[in-house]
């Protein structure tokens, strides 16, 4: 505070308040620096080295070699990038709009709406490990529900949902979408509950049909919720890991299901760990995430400022 502050005006923060603020800001800040920024910078530093994670003296600087290796000579890398992009596009184009659609339908005071809402939201309540187990049972090649139904339909052929590299990513995406839809639905439903019905009435008086009301009136008016949903979708896609890990049997990347997050754990966790190599992969994922989040934030705030 500058000395020019008028003496007559009481100081807004007493000494107690200052200590209080220092503590409540200081501790989280220290935690943030220590648990987020320090590891992030350490990963960045380690990504230029080779290290087996045991003796600090064994860290050797190798410059950009890890990155060179990854981009030119690491077979699962490009499939992983592709799968991450597919994941993002799939989630953004199918389960997210479907969740919004369901929310819009369920908001229209239909009968049993609460039962539907509960049923659709239920997967979100379950831990992802449980979701994994459920879908494992559905996808089992010998006794699974899905093959049971298909065999009954007379095809007589096994479909190896989780083993076939051309199929398994989609099988996992459906399992993840199953959960994601409920999440989006609840978020959107919350937005719709706060929506001013007068706007809808006005639209109806102007002769708008259901589709027009939604696209021209409701959807634009719910911009804050839409932004949250977009953020949630991007975040969920970039951090995709757990359900693939569970459905892949908890052993890291499998053919057809490579993701950047899985490649990182493959290299870092395990009996012979390659911390430097894994860190370089983590830095790649960090850059991809920052690019996605940065673009989005710049876009949003630029519009807000106008």
């Amino acid at each position, binding site marked *: 505070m500058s000395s020019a502050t008028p003496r007559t005006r009481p100081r807004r923060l007493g000494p107690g*308040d200052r200590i209080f603020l220092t*503590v409540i800001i200081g*501790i989280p800040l220290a935690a943030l620096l220590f648990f987020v920024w320090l590891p992030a910078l350490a990963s960045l530093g380690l990504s230029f080295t080779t290290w087996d994670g045991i003796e600090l003296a064994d860290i050797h600087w190798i410059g950009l070699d890890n990155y060179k290796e990854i981009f030119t000579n690491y*077979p699962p890398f490009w499939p992983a990038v592709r799968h991450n992009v597919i994941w993002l596009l799939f989630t953004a184009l199918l389960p997210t709009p479907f969740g919004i659609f369901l929310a819009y339908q369920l908001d229209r005071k239909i009968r049993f709406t609460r039962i539907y809402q509960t049923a659709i939201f239920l997967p979100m309540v379950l831990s992802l490990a449980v979701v994994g187990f459920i879908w494992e049972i559905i996808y089992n090649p010998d006794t699974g529900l899905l093959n049971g139904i298909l065999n009954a339909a007379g095809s007589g052929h096994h479909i*190896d949902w989780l083993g076939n*590299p051309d199929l398994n990513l989609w099988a996992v995406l459906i399992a993840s979408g199953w959960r994601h839809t409920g999440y989006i639905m609840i978020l959107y439903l919350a937005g719709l509950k706060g929506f001013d019905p007068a706007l809808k009435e006005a639209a109806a008086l102007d002769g708008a049909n259901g589709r027009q009301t939604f696209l021209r009136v409701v959807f634009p008016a719910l911009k804050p919720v839409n932004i949250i949903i977009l953020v949630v979708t991007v975040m969920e896609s970039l951090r995709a890991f757990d359900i693939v890990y569970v459905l892949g049997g908890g052993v890291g990347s499998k053919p057809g299901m490579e993701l950047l997050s899985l490649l990182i754990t493959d*290299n870092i966790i395990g009996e*012979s760990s390659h911390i430097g*190599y894994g860190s370089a992969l983590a830095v790649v994922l960090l850059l991809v995430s920052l690019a996605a989040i940065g673009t989005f934030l710049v876009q949003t705030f630029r519009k807000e400022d106008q």
Partner: protein
Amino acid sequence: MTQQSRHHLAARGPGRRGVVGGLFGLGAAALGAPVLSACGSGAGADPKTVTFGSNGADATPKKAYAAVTEAFAKDSGLKVKTNTVDHDTFQKSISTYLQGTPDDVFTWFAGYRMQYFAKKQLCSPLDDVWDKIGAGFSDATKQLSRGEDGKYYFVPLYNYPWAVFYRKSLFKERGYQVPQKWGEFIALAKRMKKDGLAPIASGYGGGDSWSILGAFDYLDLRANGYDFHMSLMRGKVSWTDKRTVAVLDLWRELTPYYQPSAGGRSWQDAAQSLLDKKSGMAVIGLFLGQQITDEKIRADIDFFPFPEIDATHGQDAVEAPTDGFMLSRRPKNEDGAKKLLEFLGGAQAEELYMGVDPSNLAVNEQAKTDSYNALQKKSADLIASAKHISQFADRDSDPGFISTVVLPGLTEWLGHPDDGSGTLKKIESQRSRFFTA
């Protein structure tokens, strides 16, 4: 501490602020907690207690280890505190586990996989223990228990062979003959397929992709011999060598006879299909027996050694992974831990263990084998007659190389078994990252 005084200073509106302050205080305490607990020495410092880290989380091995440690506790007056972790998790976190505060004695595997940690000095040498238990073990076993520096680091408990398992009654019903040579093996598989069976039970879904390595190892051992196989495993020969290419060519002959949809099935389900006579044969380890609950079926199970491919190597190599124990690098109770290891290396511990879990074989030659079932007896003979004993690909090689490079490569290839040399090229390009000269 500041949190306490906070209350009085922010006298106005203490309710909300107090709560917030309290929450942050809790948060701070939680942040501090791991640091604090890492400083204190736990129960392990107690000279009457030995801690034992076990990967035997399945019901049978868990019960077997409990029987062994109880007997030791009664014998020695020391308490054994067992800390059981799921098998796969144990392996995956072994490196961090050994660098943290590991248990004094822990379960591990023989071979390169043990030598790796010995080289990194994450475990203690056991020469003084071996002075006492050495008499019970063959030279081959002694060799398996030493690190690259010649010191002992490992106390073996049991091993089990891999072979081709089948049901005797099925072979009798259909008039199948046990094949000796590769051609006969393929012909038998073809016949089984015609008879409506899945000739070779197969399940490498989920976390079970390791199970395909049994076939790979045997094909390589039979076609190229033990020495080449070990050089390949230790990263000393190129994976694009024409001898390795030949292995995949042989494997391709076999793949049409694999049980379909293997990539989504667990090894247990595959083993079950053999027990249910839906599959004809299975390339698997003796641990298949853990799947059997009906003793009548156990008596009906038999195996034959993987068929001969090249007459120069015949069937001279047997894949028989050995499991046992190691001592962590700074055990809290070193004397007690060594006493436990001596006990574990003795005949009595073996007999106790095998009494509960009959799907393994005692390694100590002084252990009584009278209670062995027919399958165990035959397995013991198979191992005893072998000229070379290999462990298993992920134990004979760098496990990181196997799990992040070889396994994804080979499982992907098994899905479309055509371009073998492309797969091997991908594997080869990663080799130098794991094996530095």
